[in-house]
């Protein structure tokens, strides 16, 4: 799980062009969206959907579901563990 979390952090930084952020800056329990935490936006959410498909072969069918999955790095990791084929 820890490996997955570290790997996810790096993938998020790369795919979302978070140049100024290092994996150590990301608290896996902190909210990804909104004013606190990473402050991601709606375009980032769409990119996260693609990230899951690209690296883990996982599709998120419902945009509403995406909101729950993308709460934090931890919640994404849990979703990957539960859904990876």
């Amino acid at each position, binding site marked *: 799980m820890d490996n997955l979390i570290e790997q996810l952090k790096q993938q998020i930084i790369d795919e979302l*062009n978070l140049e100024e952020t290092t994996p150590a800056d990301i608290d896996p329990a902190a909210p990804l969206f909104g004013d606190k935490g990473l*402050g991601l936006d709606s*375009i980032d959410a769409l990119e996260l959907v693609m990230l899951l498909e690209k690296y883990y072969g996982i599709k998120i069918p419902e945009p509403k579901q995406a909101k729950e999955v993308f709460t934090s790095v931890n919640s994404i990791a849990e979703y990957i563990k539960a859904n990876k084929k």
Partner: protein
Amino acid sequence: MESAKIVYAIADNIISGLGSDTTANADSVFAEKTGIGLVDDKRLYPEPFLAQHINDNDLEESAIYRQTANMHRLERLMITSASKALSQTAVDTRSDNVVFIFSTTKGNIRLLEGSEKVPNDAFLDQLAKRVANFFGAANTPLVISNACISGVLAQVTAIRLLKSGKYATAVIIGGDELTEFVISGFESFQSVSAKPCKPYDANRDGLSMGEGVATLIVSTDPSLAGEQRIMLAGGASSNDANHISGPSRTGDGLFFAIQNAMAEAEAEISDIDLIDAHGTATPYNDEMESKAIGLAGLNEVPLLSLKGYFGHTLGASGLLETIICIECIRRGIRPRTLNFEQLGVPVNVNVSTSTGPAKLRTILKTASGFGGCNAAIVISTEKSGKLYPPETGSTTISTCTIADKKIWRNGDTVYTGNDSDDFGQFIRGAFKAIAQPYMKFSKMDDLCKLALTAAEYLTEGENLADCGEEGVALLLGCRASSLDTDLRHQKVIEVKEPYMPSPAIFVYTLANIMQGEICIRHKFKGENLCLVAGSKEECENFLPGYADLLLAEGRAKKCIVGYADFLQGKYEAELKLIEKKP
């Protein structure tokens, strides 16, 4: 002396899947017939999708269309449309009193397919010049490429140029093709509905794509105005200063544009007989529009979206839909918002639910688009709009130039990059040297980074908050538009397995996003204009004079005006902050 010019709509044409002239298109609307249908064409998108598109075979009856077979498809469509409109009127296109104004987001973007470099004809000014030259135009044509508001903003621009007496007649031509480039982009945004779009409806879940070309000719010559005089009485633009793809959560940006367009037109709430809004049927756009209409006190006015008939025709939409509005006035028919069933927007607006006779004197037309931009115009048989005050010129407050890894402010070198820096390193260093860390910066494309950094240096130490929310106008020109990022998006979509168009790239395939980024950072909600021209000089021939018009008219207290261009590592920015001469 005030200029007593009135802007008349004198001739028009629409080409879409619903017909090759205005009458056929309007007939379809009044018969509640849609052009949207299932398209199954792997060259456009891997899966079948819904869209309205032009059938090229329908145009073969046009001699001009056949004659221009050596030109690119969009150019042929534009020439055919403009010829049909010009045939209705006695305008001499060779006169230096006539200006051609183009409204397009992507122009000949198909030419990027399979290309490493940008072909010359993919530059938007080249398309405009080829079409304008066909008609022997005396003046350099203008290209307004301002995302989905381009068609309305081209008319706002025409109103100003004509009312101020710079030209007597404007031939406004708008169009965009249905291409894999745009379809894949909107699909990546999950903005395309699997059903025909349902504007303002509780079950709306996205837009339908569309394709169209339209021409509207406007003139201050009353002898060309025809019997039933229809006027463009006022217009305005604004920016949400909220997000580059998500519309305002309050609707205040669009409200400002509506308010200012109505003020210029001298139209009261009770004068507006119909609103034809953008109404794309994406959840957030329609929600935002309802709030703006509420803020403007226009909730009771019948609200129309034409997207259920034509889909979203992008650069043509503002123009095409205006022409339908003109036809509604001419025939005295108010159409219904197709596919609307049950209200699903937060403010209780009065969506038009039946097609029938109505006395229409004054119509408000609005548009909103990526980059947070909004525009509105007032079309009327009885309002002619305010006269313009005389121009007084402007004075320069500050300047900023970025070129050759250097930044100059007011003529002094204020930042020098390292010799070994590439553009990315140089611009990041330059931005860091003047600004606190800004999360959005690293996500931007190079054109936006360049323009934002130039604006940062330009406005350093200037108190622009005193100008008020709408007090600063942003008028930017460029040559390459967003072609640098266009190439990136094109490369992405040429990989078919896996097919993964990126919304974070696609959103930057519009040049006006650079204005959106500046507006978001500085909270500028005033007038916006993004001009694409053949060179910096061509931009300079137009933009400063246009800025003076806005300042004289009181539309802006200060203007940021200038040029920012980036293509494959070559770049230049030159911005000025100006104000009215005291």
